[in-house]
């Protein structure tokens, strides 16, 4: 119907422009309560309906979406209920953002814009979620107990860095890191041993695969009884959790080198250890890193859940469960934000090391 637009994009364009128009009309009816800049952006949004006749640049849609988001946030908070036009404007901003992302993705695919702009799409999606969260909770007067606004969580983060840092050290630095290193190291060592014996490979691997599918996290209360309330018991839970994925993946990886390559090593008269270090371990690296990445999230989960079964009065899991009880939900979310950042950073770090070590692998060369 419209030039150069797919059916989905035409629909989005019509909806976005139409809703902007509707918002302007409701403002006209209710007597211009919205601030002037927001109104101006809405009018421009309504004008984009001329797209039906002549094509528009998609950067305009992006600009409208971003401007709309900024203005939507700037008019907060409302004393009473937010006017209808506010919600309409929010929907329009979201639709313009979607329209922009869809067109940008198409342009990227056709190589009409530089590939670096590809980062914009996920960034905009994340930002849009945050804006929507902030605007909905504050304009809709959602009780803070149910869902605090992101700005409130940020304020809490800035207010109590001491507590958060102490919890971070207790849970992440002490329990997660020590348990992770120990558990992955053990899994790796056992895998190397098991690999030498076909008997153990046959006996242990099905068992390891089976145990990986079980809710091992249930062992947490037992380990807390054994190792006491401090971080040692949490580290023990992490060790048990990360051991099996590491074992199974490393053994699978050690079998990844093909018979042809092994034969080549034999023709070089290389010893077992030479074959291991120069051929089989490098070939196993993608599998090992896969386990390391899975384990990075498992470890954090294990440590936090283990804290629900008893801790000293510090730690992320402890803080989450007690602050939920006291209905300090902003503190809970601040703790979750710390956990999310720590978890992502941990994962990202391992992914970076993987890129550096397995640079030869097709998935990284982009071949």
């Amino acid at each position, binding site marked *: 119907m419209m030039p150069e637009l797919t059916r989905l994009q035409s629909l989005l364009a019509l909806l976005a422009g139409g809703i902007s128009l509707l918002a302007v009309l409701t403002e006209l009816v209710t007597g211009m309560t919205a601030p002037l800049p927001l109104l101006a952006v809405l009018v421009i949004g309504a004008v984009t309906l001329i797209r039906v006749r002549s094509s528009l640049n998609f950067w305009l849609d992006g600009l409208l979406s971003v401007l709309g988001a900024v203005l939507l946030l700037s008019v907060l908070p409302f004393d009473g209920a937010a006017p209808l036009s506010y919600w309409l404007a929010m929907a329009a901003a979201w639709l313009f953002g979607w329209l922009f992302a869809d067109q940008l993705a198409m342009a990227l695919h056709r190589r009409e814009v530089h590939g670096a702009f590809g980062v914009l799409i996920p960034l905009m999606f994340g930002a849009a979620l945050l804006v929507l969260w902030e605007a909905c909770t504050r304009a809709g007067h959602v009780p803070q107990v149910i869902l605090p606004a992101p700005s409130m969580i940020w304020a809490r983060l800035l207010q109590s860095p001491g507590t958060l840092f102490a919890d971070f050290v207790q849970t992440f630095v002490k329990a997660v890191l020590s348990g992770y290193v120990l558990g992955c190291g053990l899994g790796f060592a056992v895998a190397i041993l098991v690999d030498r014996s076909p008997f153990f490979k046959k*006996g242990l691997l099905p068992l390891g695969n089976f145990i990986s599918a079980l809710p091992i996290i249930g062992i947490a209360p037992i380990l807390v009884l054994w190792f006491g309330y401090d971080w040692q018991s949490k580290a023990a839970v992490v060790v048990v959790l990360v051991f099996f994925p590491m074992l199974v993946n490393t053994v699978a990886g050690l079998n990844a080198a093909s018979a042809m390559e092994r034969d080549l090593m034999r023709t070089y008269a290389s010893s077992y250890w030479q074959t291991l270090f120069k051929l089989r371990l490098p070939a196993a690296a993608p599998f090992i890193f896969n386990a390391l990445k899975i384990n990075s*999230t498992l470890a954090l989960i294990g440590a936090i859940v283990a804290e629900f079964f008893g801790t000293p009065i510090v730690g992320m899991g402890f803080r989450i469960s007690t602050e939920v009880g006291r209905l300090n939900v902003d503190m809970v979310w601040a703790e979750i934000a710390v956990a999310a950042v720590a978890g992502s950073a941990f994962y990202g770090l391992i992914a970076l090391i993987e890129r550096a070590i397995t640079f030869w692998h097709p998935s990284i060369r982009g071949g």
Partner: protein
Amino acid sequence: MRGWLTVSRFGPLLIVLLGLGIIWYLAALWLNIPAQYGIYQRADVTEWSTPQLIGDAWSQQKPKLPAPHQIIAEMWQETTGYALNDKKSLIFHGWITLSATLYGFVSGTLLGIGLAIAIVLNRATNRSLMPWIIASQAVPILAIAPMIVVIGYNVMAGALDLPTDAARLVSKAVISAYLAFFPVTVGMVKGLRSPEIIQLDLMRTYNASAAQTFWKLRWPSAMPFLFTSMKVAIAAAVIGTVVGELPTGATGGIGARLLSGSQFGQTLQIWAALFAASALSALLVIIVGVAERLVFARMGVKP
């Protein structure tokens, strides 16, 4: 016989299991005997023989590490010893966990498939969603389980006037769905993209519409991926439900058994709950495996 034990598929597994059982019994002795001395002292028993000591160490009330037969006896007692609606019955708690798991698994799987379809069919969704779905895995979702349960329960039971049991069920199912959707999404994206270009080109030469290409090529070729990821997802769904049952307030479910066992130092109860959860998880994975075989047979896949 010797050949069967060392070379066949099950022989080595059997021997390793036996070995682990022996290690378990020895470890139970090592961990429980110190406490057994204390028990004898309090009971004023001064003379005991070694077999008696070993037997007693394997049958304590609150052992540090219960022997396997004790756990099995405890499970037997908890499943058959009480009426099905008794708070002490393991079947009662297992059913609570199972129902929340199934709700979570089904909704998580549907969500995962829906997301995967949106990602595969639309370039913008792929670019905007995929990085965040991957990032969502790096976030310790389970950490917010207690919050979702407590708040979800309060909202649903308080503001929405749902009956309390339903509210509890839904809030647990939400967590289990959150854990289950991820493997399904990732697996299905891979699966729906698994047809090769030559096959897609063939569909074009047939002048197949987008819907036809999807239902006749992409969807069938994604099936192996779907079942593989559903096995991971259902195991994750069990974990999500069990952790969702941990926060105080949840009175039923295997997770609640774990928590009350840990609060009262009832190690046998903890182990029985842990074994029950494992059995449940294994059973569900097996059921998915059977479904996989049935579907493949129906699709005409030769084994």
